[in-house]
Structures are given as C-alpha cells and as structure tokens.
C-alpha cells in the first residue's frame, strides 16, 4: 500500500484549520485509475506510453514499499510494458479493435471501477445503517455485581493453555506453508471479535486457531491485552471455562 499526498488545503473556517488529505492506493489498479483520472485520459483509449511512464515515475518516487505489495505493483508495470511492446510490433494488417492488446487491461479497469463505485454506495448505506439500532445489538454486558466471578491469575490461564497445547499436539498437524501472523493483527482481531460478540471463551478461541503457532500468538496477545487492562479474564465458577470480556472502563480504541 502506498500513500501520497494529493492535496493539502487550508479550508477557511473557524474550526476547520489545516487539513491534509491522504490518498491511499490499495493496489496497482487503484493507482492506474488515479493516474488516468489525473491525466484526463479516456479509459477506452489509453495512451500506454504516457501512462506507463507516469506509473513507473510514481513507483520510483516512492521509497521502500511493503515487499508483498511491491510485487503486485511491479507485475502491473510489467503488464503495461508488455502491452506497449505488443502495440509496437510491426504487423501486416492494422489491429482490429477487438484484438487491441489493451482490451484486457481496460476490461479489468472498468470492472474495478465498478467495484469501487459499488463500495462508495455501500459505504453510504453502511453510514445510514450505523445510526439505526435494532433490538439484536444488545449483547450481554459484563455482569458487574456478580461477586461469584473469579478474576483468574496468570497460572490459571497458563494451565488451560497447556492443556490445549497437548490436545493440539496430539492432532499431529503438519504445517506445509506457514503464514506470518503479527501480534498487532491478532490483537486487533481479538478486540474486533470482542466488540462483535461481547464475550469470548478463552479455550474455544485458542482451539479455533488453525495452527499451534497461531494459538500461541493468540495466547500472548490475550496476555498482552489483559496487561494493558483492555480486557479481563474471568472464571464464572470454579472449574468452569474461562471467559474474556472487554473491560468496561477501558478507553475506547
């Protein structure tokens, strides 16, 4: 993902102040569409040379990108150059419109543009719906007065975790291709799940993780979140499962 500063406007107004708008390009098609719009180019008749130069300029101006994403951006650059070379090749007959080497790219761009338009409209609907409440949203809040609740210690958590590890190990799973999971992603995921469901069963959640490694990371994330006092782990009764709740007094993220 690369970001560029599109416009920085100092909108006059009492509280508006100085605003910087950041345009984020999610992918190569996104960037291409932006360049096409900027150059006021007709999407059906793209001057490939111009757009390729713009595109490569853009890439070289950006310093290090995320490597995964860089590959995607470079793939598009290669495609653009390929199309250009196709158009330069001498031919005995002029190209017919339906075998224009640009056609596939144009179709993809138009389709992508459609998806972007749909996203915009869905975002409006999401916004409308966000002000409307149904009775379903009331999830059980953390029972406060209930004194039977036992806030569990690290050892209780660790013990349940080791039980789970043993169980997982016996499944004799083999990971063929590991996937990279970052703590930050996992924590966000946990917070998101808690927001959506209100409560989470500690063991079930770890058990639902695909791999041992992912379960491990989830465990650390849970500990980290407990330490940061964003969530609280509670055992409703002795020998019952441990549940995790978002802390009420936690500052909203």
């Amino acid at each position, binding site marked *: 993902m690369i970001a560029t500063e599109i416009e920085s406007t100092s909108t006059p107004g009492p509280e508006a102040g100085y605003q910087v708008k950041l345009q*984020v390009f*999610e*992918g*190569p*098609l*996104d960037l291409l569409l932006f360049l096409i*719009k900027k150059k006021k180019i007709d*999407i059906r008749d793209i001057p490939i040379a111009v757009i390729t130069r713009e595109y490569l300029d853009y890439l070289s101006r950006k310093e290090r990108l995320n490597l*995964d*994403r860089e590959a*995607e951006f470079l793939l*598009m650059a290669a495609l653009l150059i390929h199309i250009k070379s196709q158009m330069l090749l001498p031919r005995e007959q002029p190209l017919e419109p339906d075998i224009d080497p640009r056609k596939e790219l144009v179709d*993809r761009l138009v*389709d*992508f*543009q*459609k*998806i*972007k*338009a*749909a*996203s*915009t*409209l*869905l*975002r409006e*609907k*999401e*916004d*409308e*719906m*966000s*002000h*409307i*409440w*149904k*009775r*379903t*949203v*009331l999830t059980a809040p953390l029972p406060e007065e209930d004194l039977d609740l036992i806030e569990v210690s690290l050892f209780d958590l660790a013990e349940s975790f080791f039980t789970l590890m043993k169980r997982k190990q016996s499944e004799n799973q083999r990971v063929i291709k590991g996937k990279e999971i970052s703590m930050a992603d996992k924590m966000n*995921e946990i917070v*998101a*799940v808690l*927001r*959506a469901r209100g409560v989470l069963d500690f063991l079930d959640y770890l058990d639902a993780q695909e791999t041992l490694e992912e379960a491990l990371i989830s465990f650390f994330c849970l500990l980290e979140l407990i330490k940061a006092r964003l969530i609280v782990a509670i055992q409703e009764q002795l020998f019952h499962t441990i549940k995790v709740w978002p802390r*009420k007094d936690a500052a*909203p993220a």
Partner: protein
Amino acid sequence: MDNLKEIIEALIFISVEPLTAEKMKEVLTDVPEPDIAQALQELVTRYESADGAIRIIQTAGGYVFSTKPAYDPYVRRLLQIERKKKLSSQALETLSAVAYHQPVTQSEISAIRSVDSTYALHTLLENKLIKIVGRKEAPGRPLLYRTTEKFLTYFGLNAIEDLPSEEELRKLMQEENS
C-alpha cells in the same frame, strides 16, 4: 379481522430477527395474503409518519423494529459505544467484489482487485458478512464465497437484487470521471 395490523405488530415486536411474510402467513393461516400485505404496508407507514422513535424496516427479506436515526446518540450513550465500527476500505472493496461476482474464489477476487485478498476475506468471514458455499470445479478445487444474510441486514438491503444497479454504478462512475 379488525385488529390484523395489531397482530402483525405484536409478531414483529417479539421477533429479534427480521420476521418474514411467510412466517406471518404461517400464523395467520385463515387470512388472505393480500390482506396481510396491505396491513403490513399500513403498519410500516403508520410508524414512519408517527412522532415516535421507533420504525419498522424491511431488511433481509423480513420486517424488524428499529430506532429512528435521530436517537442514535442516546442509544450509543446507553450502550457505551463511542461509534459503530466501520469496515476498512479494503474489506469493503473486497466485500463489494464478492457481492457482485458471487459465487467467487479468493484468486478471482484478488485478480479483480489486483491485490492479494486473503486477509480481507478472512476478516469478512469472521464478521459473518460472507460464507463459504462450496468448492469450484477447477484445478485445486478452490473455495467459493457468497455474501450472507447478515450482509443484507448490515447494509439495510432487503434482497441481493437491491444492490446498487449497473445504471447507478455507471452514473457514479461518470460523475467521478468528469
């Protein structure tokens, strides 16, 4: 039946999930269908035009009570919710791609967006906005995804046909291009 509207009102009231017209018919076996439809319509209109804070919305093929937008700040205060969580732009884009191309595979979505969409799909699955509906009969037998009923309720759509039409999309694209 004189109090048909009130009966339907009671049925919708006790339903936490959107109540479908079919379900109403099951309860009101001896009432002709057009009568139910008409009573429903009148009921919806009555709530809409009344001063109250409640309305009936049609979503995911059924009817359900909801608050009117004006009361959003107070409801949020009660629920201690700062702001409703919104989908990230990546997730939303991925979701639109699924909605318009379903049933669709991960690699097809990634091709449409020109960006690897594995993670975004994972998030959407977790939020139950999409579901796995099977495998495609293609090399590797990749998983196929579709939008869920929760997707419809989330965006306040009654059916998948209510997605913005080709024309609406084209209009928006033209506006943006000019």
